[in-house]
């Protein structure tokens, strides 16, 4: 891919022209650009370049591209495109609809003939097709329908893969299951979600204005719960009885009563049914008073409780909600689980306020078990947590804190267990807002949230299997797996002369989540203080292990980083000789580009411990030398005393020798 000719080209065919943006085809935060098909210049295409940190719907891509879907913009290709040495982006290439949008907001509504005669049948075909492949579109809305050719011919539904499911939809397009969730947390939904969106789209196109315009999402949600979607939205548009029947079937708030694919097929074939419109949430015979309002619907009550959690906790503590659910709603199972939610408030983790919030969150999840899960500023539908975590990292804010609290406190696990205990239609449920396995993993990694490779960053990558690493070190470049990450880090490090941090929280979490067998290394790292030499050495060991396992080619750039972190450690060596020797050796061995070899050759831990021992001995020797010099310099008196003593001894020996000589000589002289 380093070939300059292939820069900006997807699969050697589709050249993405970044200098020619097509802003009207932007998809949320993803930007659209013109594409040149290098093999077939007659193709009119555009590319969506995925913004960093955007969890696109990788699970449905293969299914979607396996077979062409008539009535949808054709997804020609997708993959990673290299724009320069360190700039990699994920790109989707679609047909560019030259006829423009079928509906423009603010203009007059479309005629019933166009909507029901041209647009809806095509979209029904798309829904049926996708449903047969067990995937959902989740992007059916008036602004996402195009004419493929000029002259308002060839209807095509826009793309649905570049953003989290349903995240670009207006809240009104979402059924009750996800209407209350934040945009990025709406989840994959089911075919019934697409069918509901189709109904709203019809209302939107016929009415000419966004349905429910002027109301906040929460007001719309409440109104749908009280009156039902049909009653809230349909009377405001000019609709024939044919449209009325269609919408009554599509907009039923109860997914089990909403028209399904079979009914849609019959409708498409001209067999019209007369469904009864829905009337909102189930109603209890007797009301429950909360915050001076009377509530008959448990989901409405749940919504109200999320707005005033402190009062809601008092209500829960009084046992009024429990008895209302048991007696008025005649739901003993939910009543028992509600009683259990109070115990969360009494014995849960965190402070009193936090325990109250946890208790209310659990109670709301029981009262509105089909809707979005609420916790503080966070609301997400089933399967929507991954998208929410990703969004919280793109836009820092209170949602991120709420997610962290939800995951670390164990309340999510508690809610999921409670939800899974509930039986529906005589059998136990097997899914919840988050898979039990994923929730358990997240709870475990949040226990060591301060350590590298753990915490919310790890949850981000565990919950979004296809998400690129969003570390700021990568400067927005796309990497799908650890191998690509390693190669990109190598290029970055080479460019920055080793002055990068290849182990920030995101990169570490990404590595653990995407590489088998790395968990134990990071667990070990978590036990070592960051100031310890072993900590840095373990980071280098991990990098060496990754190189060995994933990308064994020479990594001179990463070796420069190794040098930059090893040099301060080598500088800790007291011996100048050993230090200079190791530095020279390091300079030589990094040329190999092999991190394992560097570790082996330098053997820093051993060198440091040997140096430490020898330095201790050297200090003792130095102290002894200093002491001896001082003693000798101040030892004049002692030497004088010793000299006198020794001198007198010598003198006495000489004297005695002289005496003996005198005796001998005198004897010889006077007797001889």
């Amino acid at each position, binding site marked *: 891919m380093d070939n300059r000719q292939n820069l900006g080209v997807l699969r050697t065919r589709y050249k993405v022209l970044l200098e020619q943006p097509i802003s009207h085809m932007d998809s949320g935060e993803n930007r659209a650009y013109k594409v040149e098909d290098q093999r077939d210049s007659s193709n009119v295409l555009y590319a969506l370049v995925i913004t960093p940190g955007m969890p696109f719907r990788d699970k449905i891509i293969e299914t979607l591209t396996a077979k062409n879907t008539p009535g949808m913009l054709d997804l020609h290709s997708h993959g990673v495109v290299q724009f320069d040495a360190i700039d990699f982006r994920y790109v989707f290439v679609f047909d560019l609809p030259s006829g423009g949008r079928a509906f423009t907001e603010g203009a007059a509504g479309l005629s019933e003939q166009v909507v029901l005669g041209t647009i809806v049948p095509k979209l029904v075909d798309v829904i049926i097709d996708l449903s047969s492949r067990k995937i959902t579109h989740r992007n059916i809305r008036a602004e996402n329908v195009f004419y493929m050719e000029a002259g308002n011919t060839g209807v095509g539904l826009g793309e649905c893969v570049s953003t989290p499911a349903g995240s670009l939809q207006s809240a009104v397009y979402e059924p009750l299951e996800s209407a209350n969730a934040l945009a990025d947390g709406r989840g994959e939904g089911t075919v019934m979600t697409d069918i509901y969106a189709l109904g709203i789209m019809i209302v939107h196109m016929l009415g000419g204005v966004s349905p429910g315009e002027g109301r906040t999402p929460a007001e719309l949600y409440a109104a749908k719960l009280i009156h039902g979607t049909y009653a809230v939205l349909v009377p405001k548009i000019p609709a024939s009885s044919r449209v009325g029947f269609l919408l009554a079937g599509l907009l039923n708030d109860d997914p089990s009563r909403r028209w399904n694919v079979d009914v849609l097929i019959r409708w498409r074939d001209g067999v019209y049914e007369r469904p009864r419109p829905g009337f909102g949430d189930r109603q209890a015979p007797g009301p429950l008073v909360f915050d001076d309002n009377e509530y008959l619907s448990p989901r409405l009550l749940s919504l109200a409780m999320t707005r005033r959690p402190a009062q809601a906790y008092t209500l829960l503590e009084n046992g009024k909600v429990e008895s209302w659910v048991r007696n008025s709603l005649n739901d003993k199972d939910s009543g028992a689980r509600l009683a259990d939610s109070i115990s969360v408030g009494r014995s849960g983790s965190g402070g009193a306020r936090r325990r109250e919030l946890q208790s209310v969150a659990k109670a709301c999840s029981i009262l509105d078990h089909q809707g979005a899960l609420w916790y503080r500023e966070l609301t997400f539908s089933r399967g929507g947590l991954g998208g929410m975590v990703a969004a919280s990292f793109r836009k820092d804010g209170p949602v991120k804190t709420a997610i962290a609290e939800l995951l670390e406190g164990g309340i999510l696990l508690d809610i999921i267990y409670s939800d899974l205990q509930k039986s529906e239609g005589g059998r136990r449920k097997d899914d919840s807002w988050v898979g039990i396995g994923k929730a358990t993993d997240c709870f475990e990694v949040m226990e060591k949230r301060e350590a590298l490779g753990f915490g919310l960053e790890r949850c981000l990558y565990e919950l979004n299997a296809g998400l690129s690493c969003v570390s700021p070190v990568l400067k927005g470049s796309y990497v799908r797996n650890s191998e690509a990450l390693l190669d990109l880090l190598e290029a970055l490090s080479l460019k920055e002369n080793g002055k990068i941090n290849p182990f920030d929280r995101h990169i570490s979490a990404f590595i653990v989540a995407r590489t088998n067998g790395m968990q134990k290394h990071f667990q070990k790292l978590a036990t070592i203080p960051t100031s310890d030499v072993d900590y840095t050495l373990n980071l280098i060991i991990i990098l060496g292990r990754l190189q060995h396992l994933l990308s064994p080619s020479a990594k001179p750039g990463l070796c420069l980083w190794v040098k930059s972190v090893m040099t301060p450690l080598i500088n800790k060596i*007291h*011996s*100048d*000789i050993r230090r200079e020797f190791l530095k020279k050796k390091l300079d030589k061995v990094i040329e190999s580009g092999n991190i394992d070899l560097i570790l082996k050759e330098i053997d820093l831990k051993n060198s440091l411990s040997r140096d430490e021992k*020898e*330095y201790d*001995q*050297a*200090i*003792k*020797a*130095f*102290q*002894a*030398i*200093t*002491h*001896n*010099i001082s003693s*000798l*310099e101040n*030892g*004049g008196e002692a*030497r*004088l005393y*010793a*000299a*006198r*003593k*020794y*001198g*007198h*001894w*010598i*003198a*006495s020996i*000489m*004297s*005695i020798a*002289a*005496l003996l*000589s*005198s*005796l001998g*000589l*005198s004897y010889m*002289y*006077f007797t001889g």
Partner: protein
Amino acid sequence: MPADAQNGNASKGYAPLLIFIGLGSVFVPPFIIILSVGMIPSIIAKFANPTRVRGTIASMVALNLAGVIPVMGFLWQRGASIDNALMLLSDVYMWLMMYGGAGIAGFLLWGVPAVVQSFYDVQARQYIKRLEKRRSKMIEEWGGQIIEDAKVQPVVTKNKTPKNK
């Protein structure tokens, strides 16, 4: 009591000398005269020993005696009479011989310690030089930090400087 005991020991130490002098005065008075006069420097040194260092008196007595013995040899040769003894004492060379020995002793007791001290000083200076050289080498090898660290760490007192590592 210890003072009395010391006095007792001293008197015991002098007893043979006094007995020797007493017997000598009775049987060989000329020799005792020569000895008494010739050994005056030792007697003075005994009582005026400024340093009280052991061996100084022995040196003085030995060399003083080495000078007196030839004089007593002359007395024995000329006949052991008091006249001869007095005649010998009137000879300045005899005095020179007896007191010269004591003088030499005094010179030795002053000079030898001075020489030894000079030798010790030279030896100490050389040893300091060697130690400073080694200290410089250690600073060169371990860096200036070792000076600070050596001050901070508790000192292990050893009389001997450790050998090279």
